[in-house]
């Protein structure tokens, strides 16, 4: 097995093997299955993950392969199942919890933030909590205010948690395997609108992981650095493609893990381009973009800036139901392009 970092990693499909394309959901399932086959301590718990296959179909078929002891349907008790995962993790297991919608993190948060995240520190390093909390985040499905939020900033603010948001099937698989193997509680936020997106992923025989804390430069460019993550990555790449028609060459950095953050990748890129723009779906105020902006501003990249740092984020509103309104409150390609052009004026 090999581990792919940022620089010089072989892109899938460049090996002798023919390129295989699978969806983001399938890539997550492959990671879960491979980890469960390799390690009897790994098990799943969550609502409707068994015979139903998960609300988004991620665990489809796993119940049949691994049985009800290792793919455990639970009552509707996000608090208790998150805490039970923490307790199991502290006592020798490696649970992976599925929280159906990331909005329900609000219910799980006591056990996640007060218990799982703090156990190692408050017990003086006696224990580690190797659990993963998988959840589906983001808007765009017409699920309205209580099923569409992007709450990553909430969990990034709790020391002891790691936070991962993958943007491609390849990254989703490699990062989830690393998350399961990590000795800390990891919040793994999947993107609802990416579940059906396909992308190249190596054949299962070609096992790989992606280390947490390593960003990926998804597009190399020299005029402008766009720092983003999750489902805004493909949107920023599309925007960058269109900007190139106008002669603007944007670099797109997918940070992939918010905690720990690959600051040096961001800083080096901004030092090269002199312009920084941050794009995320979550609402702007106290969003993770503020942290990225501060990382840039507090580094020596500050002296290379030719323009103020720009944020393109969701509006500070709940996600509305109406599809036109819903699409309008998160960054669109047009908003991203307009901000980029403005930054280069």
């Amino acid at each position, binding site marked *: 097995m090999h581990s792919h970092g940022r620089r010089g990693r072989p892109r899938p499909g460049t090996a002798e093997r023919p390129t295989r394309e699978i969806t983001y959901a399938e890539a997550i399932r492959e990671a879960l299955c491979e980890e469960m086959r390799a390690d009897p301590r790994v098990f799943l718990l969550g609502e409707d993950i068994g015979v139903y296959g998960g609300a988004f179909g991620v665990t489809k078929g796993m119940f049949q392969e691994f049985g009800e002891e290792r793919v455990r349907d639970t009552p509707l*008790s996000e608090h*208790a199942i998150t*805490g039970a995962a923490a*307790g199991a993790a502290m006592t020798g297991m490696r*649970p992976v919890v599925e929280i159906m919608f990331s909005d329900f993190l609000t219910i799980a948060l006591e056990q996640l933030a007060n218990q799982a995240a703090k156990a190692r520190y*408050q017990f*003086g390093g006696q224990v580690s909590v190797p659990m993963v909390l998988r959840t589906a985040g983001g808007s765009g499905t017409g699920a309205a205010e209580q099923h569409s939020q992007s709450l990553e900033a909430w969990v990034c603010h709790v020391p002891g948690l790691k936070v991962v948001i993958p943007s491609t099937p390849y990254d989703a698989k490699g990062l989830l395997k690393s998350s399961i193997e990590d000795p800390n509680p990891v919040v793994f936020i999947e993107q609802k609108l990416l579940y059906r997106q396909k992308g190249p992923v190596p054949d299962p025989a070609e096992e790989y992981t992606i280390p947490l804390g390593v960003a990926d430069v998804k597009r190399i460019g020299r005029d402008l650095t766009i720092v983003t993550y999750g489902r805004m990555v493909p949107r920023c790449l599309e925007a960058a493609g269109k900007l190139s028609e106008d002669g603007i060459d944007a670099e797109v950095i997918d940070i992939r893990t918010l905690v720990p953050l690959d600051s040096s990748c961001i800083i080096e890129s901004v030092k090269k381009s002199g312009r920084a723009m941050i794009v995320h779906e979550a609402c702007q105020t106290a969003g993770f973009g503020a942290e990225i902006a501060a990382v840039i501003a507090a580094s020596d990249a500050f002296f290379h800036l030719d323009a103020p740092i720009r944020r393109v984020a969701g509006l500070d509103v709940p996600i509305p139901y109406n599809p036109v309104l819903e699409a309008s409150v998160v960054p669109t390609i047009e908003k991203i392009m307009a901000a980029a052009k403005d930054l280069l004026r």
Partner: protein
Amino acid sequence: MVSTRSRKASDTEASHGIPADTLRGIYLRMAQTRGFEEAAARLFTEGKVHGTAHFCIGEEATGIAVCAALKPEDRITATHRGHGQSIGKGMRLDLMMAEFLGKETGYCKGRGGCMHIADFAAGSLGANGIVGGGIPIAVGAALSQRLQGSPNITACFFGDGATSTGSFHESVNLASVWKLPVLFVCVNNLYAMSTPLRKQANIADLALRGQAYGIRSVSMDGNDAIGIYLAAREAREHVRVNGPMLLVLNTYRHMGHSKSDANVYRSKQEIEEWKKRCPLRRMRERLVSEGTFTEKELDAIDAQALADVEEAVRFAESSPSPRIDEAARDVYA
């Protein structure tokens, strides 16, 4: 108030086939707990403690006697009022006192204090600062035991206040559905901080809250150490074979909720009434009247407990504080 379907004296007579060593251990650990907390209160008065503490004086029989019925490989989760539960599970007084004083030599290297004291080697998965917060953790530990094919159980301590949290209800339900080996132990001291039980629950007997989830639930005298030991021994077996059970131990805390409590919500008379039912005194009288130990032998145990506590205080006071440059250690593994 609470109906205590307490066991009849005849159930627990003759100290009842319990080996004298076990009885001695229970009495010693109760005396150590009393001594530990009295010493801790003294250290407060002397201005040597930063922070707070929650004393279980009056409730010692609950944590000590339940833990005495557990196997060393069994696990517990403890409460913020958990000194007796920790000592009962075999934790060391010196390392506990050092933690209480925030020292590097403490169980948690001074990071957690006694509200978060834990000893994973001894099977204590930690006291908890969140009321009800440890209940799902205990369920998860029992899930591990199930998945690992272990014959052991997890005992989960919490107070009457916790039975009104969602955490309690979600967790007892989950353990019941999965038939996990959890012994839920409610230390009902009649007050959630200042709020009396009658303002917390519209039922007199908290055991009803377990019955609602389809598990065996028993309410009993929480100041009778020998009775609790026998009930917990039986409960352990029930839990191992059949899945979870709720044991409600009705007791009383002699001290305030924490150091800042002026006790304005209960009468002196009520407190004095309960002090007459002191679990240490009751056990002593019983052991003497049944001829298990003489007064003199029990005096010697008391003296040993106090000496153990004083040694722990000496160790803690002479221990170094954590280093400031290590404040960020152990956030991540």
